[in-house]
């Protein structure tokens, strides 16, 4: 059976070059970078090289990069740490309604700690309006966190405009760029932001490693208490192999961004066009143009996502429904609901995320196997039965 992996938004495979870069650190170069001996030196130097590589990916200074263990940790650290560092100034934070749960639930935790939270709505494309952010800024607002792009619907947000508004009001601005960094160009200076989260496994680097960039001069309270690693800002023995892999992945992403983007955009454009024309009652979710290069998302009417995934999987096709990280949760995606979709429609979400290895033949295959899957589930669906009766009756 053909196997087609189209779930790169959930996690990407390691590039061979990344794995090669990591291997020595799973072997004889196993030292702890905090240690004052030659094993420690080798680890520390490799880690600092990686810090440079990651910094260059986002046009930052190396010393502004703090390594973490995931995008989730970067977001927890940023939202909690930046807010807590300023709690004497005020206790109001602003995030969008479609943030990843690692931002949203961190903000909810801040609420438990006495902060107030404003959620910025989005339009039907999942787009945040900078004006809405402006309206929600108050004297006591200390943090705005709006994601760079949404991993579920692919929409890229107007970060530069929002950052400008935050800056005018003197409010610290963080962006969750986990879905963007390494995939589309990011320049933190050009964007005018204060903090940014990224994660290795989104761009052919390893799992178990992320980074938080915090602009020099911006205060943050450590999230992980303990030793003095990462300049005292993030405790715990550093995951050297993964950090080295992240560095290599960053270097490769920067070097090959243009050609990758071209390849991915071609594939996703084809699917965005052909799928709704081949299968009836399918809507594209997210912004038609301002979206991640490899990202094609839909809602299929009258049927539910998990059942589609399972049948597609039985045909060798790996995709996801709702948010990758929450696809085992019960409820309809908060992102799609925030975009105004009905619950029934939101249940039928389907996300194809292309990777470097995908080809146009993969799309042929998906289009071939998806139609009967949809058909089969619709034949089982009481919602579809009602619809056909009504439209016949109507």
């Amino acid at each position: 059976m053909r196997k087609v992996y189209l779930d790169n938004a959930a996690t990407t495979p390691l590039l061979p070059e990344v794995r090669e870069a990591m291997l020595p650190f799973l072997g004889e170069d196993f030292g702890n970078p905090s240690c004052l001996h030659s094993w420690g030196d080798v680890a520390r130097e490799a880690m600092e090289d990686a810090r440079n590589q990651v910094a260059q990916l986002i046009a930052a200074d190396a010393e502004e990069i703090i390594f973490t263990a995931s995008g989730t940790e970067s977001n927890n650290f940023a939202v909690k740490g930046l807010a807590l560092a300023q709690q004497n100034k005020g206790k109001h934070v602003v995030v969008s309604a479609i943030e990843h749960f690692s931002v949203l639930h961190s903000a909810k935790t801040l609420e438990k700690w006495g902060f107030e939270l404003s959620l910025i709505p989005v339009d039907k494309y999942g787009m945040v309006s900078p004006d809405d952010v402006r309206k929600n800024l108050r004297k006591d607002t200390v943090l705005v966190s709006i994601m760079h792009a949404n991993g579920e619907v692919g929409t890229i947000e107007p970060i530069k405009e929002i950052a400008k508004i935050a800056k005018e009001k003197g409010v610290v601005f963080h962006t969750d760029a986990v879905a963007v960094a390494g995939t589309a160009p990011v320049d933190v200076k050009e964007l005018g932001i204060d903090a940014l989260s990224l994660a290795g496994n989104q761009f052919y680097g390893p799992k178990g490693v992320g980074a938080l960039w915090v602009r020099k001069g911006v205060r943050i309270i450590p999230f992980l208490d303990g030793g003095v690693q990462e300049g005292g800002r993030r405790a715990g023995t550093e995951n050297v192999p993964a950090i080295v892999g992240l560095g290599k992945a960053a270097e490769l992403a920067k070097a090959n961004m243009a050609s990758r983007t071209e390849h991915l955009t071609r594939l996703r454009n084809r699917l965005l066009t052909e799928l709704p024309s081949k299968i009836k009652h399918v809507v594209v979710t997210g912004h038609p143009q301002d979206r991640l290069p490899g990202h094609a998302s839909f809602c299929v009417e009258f049927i539910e996502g998990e059942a589609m995934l399972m049948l597609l999987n039985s045909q060798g096709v790996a995709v996801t429904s709702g948010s990758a990280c929450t696809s085992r949760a019960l409820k309809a995606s908060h992102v799609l609901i925030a975009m105004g979709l009905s619950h029934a429609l939101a249940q039928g979400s389907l996300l194809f995320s292309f990777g470097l290895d995908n080809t146009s033949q993969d799309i042929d295959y998906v289009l071939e196997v998806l139609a009967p899957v949809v058909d089969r589930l619709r034949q089982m669906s009481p919602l579809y039965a009602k619809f056909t009766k009504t439209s016949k009756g109507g």
Partner: protein
Amino acid sequence: MPVYSEKVMEHFMNPRNVGEIENPDGVGEVGNPVCGDMMTFYIKVKDNRLEDVKFKTFGCGAAIAVSSMVSEMAKGKTLDEAMKITPRAVADELKGLPKQKFHCSNLGAQALNKAIKDYLDKKKGGGKK
């Protein structure tokens, strides 16, 4: 897919008794798209027994497998016996369900019950007339 037992997968991939019954003796509809799953059961009763059971289901893999299993368990049983099919029994027949999918087995048993009650109500109503 190890989140689901083989039995669940087998019923999901080859669900029994999918469809509607024309002129059913009872219909039971439970759930709605907001909660994520929706099931409609149709029954045909003869001599106080479930002569036929069919269903339509909108929902996840577990919801479809549960519907199939409930229909299979119910078919041929007396109404009394069928009313006693518990969510637990359905989950057990399916060799277990993930915790967060347990509500599906509730829905399945409920939908069947509702269809039987619908039949009994109609009969009572018919008896009165």
